[in-house]
């Protein structure tokens, strides 16, 4: 079962490992990222950053889509994590049951618009977010679970 998809440029860090995993009751953190899937050092560091007692898997976006559409992942309470809106949109579109997207951390860069203290987006990000909403997903902004949930549509 997919509990939530989070977008976080830092992928796994303190907020993700301790606040979100607990609050979702997740038993598997699934990092979906092409670079991580092909980079053993990054993968290892992320695996170690995941809390104890929780399964950690990292795959490329293509692999993840086919896994999530199969039945091998069914027995887990999955916490999916991506680091960009394009990957998030692909998952929302191509995987059944990705219907809750949490925007966690996106840094301010050149050409970004600040939506919340932890979320800054480009025009392309806004298009991708609109795409997720059009697919029927709830897209909300929160750094930690106890923050007030702000619906992305109201900010873009």
């Amino acid at each position, binding site marked *: 079962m997919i509990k939530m998809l989070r977008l976080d440029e830092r992928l796994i860090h*303190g*907020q993700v490992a*301790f*606040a979100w995993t*607990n609050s979702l009751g997740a038993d598997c953190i699934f990092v979906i990222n092409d670079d991580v899937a092909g980079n*053993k*050092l990054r*993968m*290892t*560091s992320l*695996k*170690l950053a995941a809390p*104890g007692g929780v*399964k*950690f*898997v*990292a795959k490329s976006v293509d692999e993840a889509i086919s*896994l999530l559409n199969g039945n*091998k*992942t069914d027995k*887990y309470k999955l916490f999916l994590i991506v680091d960009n809106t394009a990957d998030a949109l692909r998952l929302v579109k191509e995987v059944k049951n990705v219907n809750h997207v949490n925007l966690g951390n996106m840094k301010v860069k050149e050409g970004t618009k600040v939506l919340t203290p932890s979320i800054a987006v480009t025009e392309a990000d806004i298009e991708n977010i609109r795409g997720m909403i059009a697919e029927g997903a709830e897209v909300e902004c929160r750094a*930690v*679970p*106890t*923050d007030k949930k702000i619906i992305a549509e109201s900010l873009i």
Partner: protein
Amino acid sequence: MLRGVKQMRKLLVATHGRFAEGIGETLRLILGDSQPLEILNAYTVLDFDMAKTAKEYVSGLGEDEELIVAADIFGGSVANAFTEYIAEGKVHVVTGLNLPLLIGLVSSLDEEGPTGEMIQNAIEDAKEGIMYANQVINETMEEEEEDF
């Protein structure tokens, strides 16, 4: 303490100087703004009296309340002032405060069961949080990747 009786646990982070305040701020960044803990920055005002301060915290406890003190270092005056009260069974003092310990204590504060056990578990987890990252990463790189 009677087993089975639901105790209210209060958590106090007590340190020499502003470490308590700082680690409290870090905790809120990670777990969210509202956290169930009190902060004691000892010796940050001239007329600070540690013994008197500890007494105030302990005497302020209600009938069903227990106090867990997370202090910076064993043998320091901050921890010592609270260990005076452990005989009554309502005060628990944990020393060697670090962030994994504080996260562990906060996350298990409402757990059922004896407070002593809950603290022991948090300490075990916190000890594992102290590691030489280079070594751990190198060792883990050798392992098989996890898969579904």
